[in-house]
Structure formats: structure tokens, C-alpha cells
């Protein structure tokens, strides 16, 4: 049982949490701002760094993104997606603006665009890891993070070895598709 405050701040589902923190941000609770930062700063900064390949510039993007959210939290519409994907989108926009401001020769521009493509793919895959069905994510994490072979993973999850193999393959196919799709859209 999570330790819930009366208005259910730590509700168990993602949409519920996103709604609750949005409400608190709109009200102007500093503790909500701190929670927002603690929950998402490493994603925002990691993404900004992948775009810009520059620590200081990435830090500036982090500051801008959180300032933008805090200045107008009502702009986030939970119905349209998770808070995380909204922050990812704000980060991408801010980072691109930084890039547009820096003069670059054509070679550097091309390398930059390649990096942005790779960063976007990685960000979509990151998101897919959290968004994919739990049955697939669990077995992928057991294999990738927990270093279980698929037979151990199957035993641990109480599924057949066939099923474990199938889930591993499906999960990776989802990641691959998530990373690839956007690239096609972008080109």
C-alpha cells in the first residue's frame, strides 16, 4: 500500500499521478515543482545532452524546460499523453532552438542532424520501454538488467520457455519499430 496523502498524490496509475501533479503545479505548490524535477530531470537532461552534446547547453535546456512547465502548467493536457512525453517534446523543441542559434558549417550541420535523428530514436525507444505491455517489459528487464537466461526468466515468471522466447522477441521488435518509425517520419 503506498503511503497516500488524503488527495491521493501517489495514486498508483500513471494518468492519475500526472493529473495530480498538474493540479498541484497549477496551484503553485513548490513541493510539486521539486517532485516534477526529481522525477524527470535525468530524462530531460539526458535527452538534451544527446541533442546538443554539450553539458552547459544541456543544463540550460533543463532550466528552460522546467521554467516553461512551472510558468504555465495548465498548458499540459493529460488527455493527450503522459507528462513524460510532453516534457520530451518540450526538450526537443528547446534543444532545436539552441541548435538553430549556433552557426555551423555544412559538415557539422549534417553530423548534428544525424545525432538528432539518433537521439530521437533513442528517446522513442526509451519511452517504448516504459509504455510497452508489462508482460513484455518484465521479461526484457529480467534478461537485460537481471542477466537471466530465458529459461530462468520463464521459470521466474511462471510461463513456458516458448512463451519467454516469444515475449523477448516481441519486446525487441516493439523497440526496433518505435525507434525506426519516427526516423521514417522525419526523413
Amino acid at each position, binding site marked *: 500500500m503506498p*503511503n497516500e*496523502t488524503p488527495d491521493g498524490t501517489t495514486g498508483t496509475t500513471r494518468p492519475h499521478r500526472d493529473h495530480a501533479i498538474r493540479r498541484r503545479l497549477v*496551484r503553485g505548490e513548490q513541493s510539486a*515543482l521539486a517532485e516534477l524535477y526529481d522525477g524527470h530531470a*535525468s530524462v530531460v537532461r539526458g535527452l538534451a545532452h544527446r541533442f546538443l552534446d554539450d553539458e552547459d547547453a544541456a543544463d540550460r535546456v533543463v532550466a528552460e524546460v*522546467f521554467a516553461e512547465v512551472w510558468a504555465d502548467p495548465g498548458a499540459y493536457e493529460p488527455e493527450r499523453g503522459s507528462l513524460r512525453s510532453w516534457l520530451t517534446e518540450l526538450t526537443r523543441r528547446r534543444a532545436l532552438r539552441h541548435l538553430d542559434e549556433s552557426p555551423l558549417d555544412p559538415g557539422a550541420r549534417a553530423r548534428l542532424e544525424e545525432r538528432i535523428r539518433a537521439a530521437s530514436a533513442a528517446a522513442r525507444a526509451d519511452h517504448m520501454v516504459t509504455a510497452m505491455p508489462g*508482460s513484455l517489459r518484465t521479461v526484457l528487464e529480467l534478461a537485460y538488467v537481471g542477466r537471466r537466461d530465458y529459461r530462468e526468466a520463464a521459470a521466474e515468471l511462471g510461463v513456458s520457455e516458448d512463451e519467454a522466447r516469444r515475449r*523477448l522477441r*516481441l*519486446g525487441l521488435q516493439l523497440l526496433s519499430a518505435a525507434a525506426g518509425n519516427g526516423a521514417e517520419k522525419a526523413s
Partner: protein
Amino acid sequence: MSPVGDRETGLEAGAGAGAGAGLETEGVAGPETAGVAGPETAGAGGAFDEEHLALKSLLGAWALAVCSPEETEAVEAHLPRCPPCAGEARRLRDAVGLMHREESLDPDPLLRSRVLDECLRRRPASTPLPEWVAPYDAETARLDALLRDMGEAEWNTPVRLHWATGERTLTLCGVLAHLGSVDGLVATALGLDDPLGPGAPRTVGDRTETAVERCRAHGPPFVRNKWRTQTRNIVRAAALRAHDAALPVDFTEFRRPLRDALAGRAFACWIHAEDIAAAVDYPYGPPAPEHLARIVDFIARRLPEAVAARRRAGLAAPPRRLTAAGAPGRTLHLEIGGRGGGDWYVPLDSPAALASPEHTVARLVLEDAEFCRLAAGHVPPREAAAGREGDDEAVRDVLWAVATLSRM
């Protein structure tokens, strides 16, 4: 349609549009299959078909390197002979690379206060965090960021906790359970649920035992989530009661006003985070200066009572003179250096006496973080890097009194 019986499609409803699109590409004859007879249609390929089906189902496990050596060998022998599998194998291997999160890019802890300050300049909070909550907020966030980097195995790392009069080794998970169980006393004072449930013991020692026991039953993700959620709820509840800094928090063996209780919990969180960091060999620095200053002040204000307690126990020199309450008495000038430091005047003969610069008989000089580590029992008094001046006995009494403040 895939040339192979499409066992995959539709199996994972809710996988999203991306799934369909990704699986679709498998069936489209891409450049790698153009002109090559599909393995399924290859003449007398009954055996090949079976091999293909069996090995194809292994591609995910193979890409993650979680199948047996024999299976790995079989897949790798199959790939050069089967372009569709080779194509999928390449895509899945690339996808494994995407599982890697860039954990090494965790933001600098100082970035947090910079970013939050900038936000608040643009739009002041309607419910700000009182300054006396800030150290607890920042230190728990810092420990949480450290924990984000922990792999599964590291959660069982033995962590040695030590204080002036004892030591105890817990797993990393156990340390977090200990912190959460004591924080729970602050939570209940604020009207939040006791993390150990109704009827849980109320002393720090018993609560720690209960929490460590539960830790064995529940496992690290549960313990971490519970600890973290509670820290956030405490910060929030304290901010909503900003006017209530004096709210009494009952730790059974002692009571503290909320403001001091939170300074103490921030202190404990920092020190145990250092214990954890030392156990897993991560760097971990002291709190931000403005937060360190509150912790230093919290410790310094407890010194007169600590000196008196040692005297009652026969460990400190008896008072040189009897001083009426409120009258000026012999004083030690405690000078704490560093950006979290300042000057404190500690009455030596009685906690009720008035300490004053004019009655200073001794001076003790310490850096801010060193002073805190001495109070945590992490630096023994005789090894403390302390500047001493004046009455030797007074200096020693205070130095040892600082160390007696430490506990698990």
C-alpha cells in the same frame, strides 16, 4: 502477411500502432530478401523449415545473449543461410542497444537548486517550501538520485553504519528501510500513515528492526518506492503547515519541534547516503552550504545539553562555578568554518547559563562538514581536525560532547 504462420500478430493487444508497423516489415520483401528464394519455399526444405521456425523464435533471446551456447551456435550457423532471419537479427541487436539508458548523465545536484530557483523567480510559489524543510527535501532527493544508479546486485551490498558507541552492518536496502522507519515518526506527527502500519513500535531501535525484517520480505523496489513516497509526502505536508515549525515530533526517547526534527532527518539522510556511497564506491559530497548551515546550527544548539549530560554521567569536568540560570557563565566559542559555518557560544557550566563572548575561556575551530561528521561519529574526537585555544579541559569536554550526539 508474413510468409511464416503469423503467430505474433494480435497476441499483444494494446502494444500500440508501433507494434503492428514493426511486425509488418517482417513480411515485406525487403532488399535483403529480393531475388532469394524464401527459406519456406525452398524445395525439399522440410527440415530447413523446422529449423527456421525453431531458430526464428530464438532471435530475441539470441539478440539479448540469454540463450544456451548450443542455441547461440545454431542461430549463428542459420543466419548466413537465411536472409529474413539475418535481417531481423540485425534489427533486434540494434534494439538491444536502445535498452541502454544513459544513467551516467545524472544531473549535478547543484543544478537542482539552480533550476528550481530560476523557476520560482519567474513565478513565485503560492505554497513555498519553508527554509527549514529545504535541507530534508534536497538531501532525500540527492539520495534518491544516487539510488537510481544502483543495479539489482548492489541493493544487497553490506553497508557499515557506525557511530561513536557502536556499529551495525545492514544491506543497502536495510539502510533505506531504517531511514524510512525513523522518518515515519515525523510522518505520523504530520498526520500521515505510519509506514510500518498501525500498532508499530515507536522507538528508533525497534522500528529499525521491524523495517529491516520487512525489507527481507518485500525486496528493494518496494522499500525504495515506499521510502521515496514518504519523503515526498513529508515535504509536502510540512510545506502545507509552514506556520507549524514548532509542532512536536515524538521520537519516544526524545522530542523535537518539527523544524529540528527535519534538520535531524536531513542530517541522517546525508550521513547514511555517505555510508551507502562508500560501500558501493561512489563519490558523494556534503549538502549545499545553506543546508549544511541548518544542520550545523541544529547540532550546535544541542551542545549545552550534551555537555551537561556527559557531566551527569561523570564523564565531563564538574562546573567551575555555580551559575544562576540566565546569568553569564564560562563560555566556549565554537567557530565553524566553511560556507555552512558561523559562530556559536556554548555555556560550559550549565545549559541554563547565558553564554557570552566576554566570558569566553576557550575556542574550538572546525570546518562545517568535519563538525557534522564528528557529530555523526564518523570522525573520532581525538582525530578531528580541530583548532583549539584556551582552557584544554573545556575544549575536550565540548569535542567529546559533539561525538556523543551520534547514534545509528
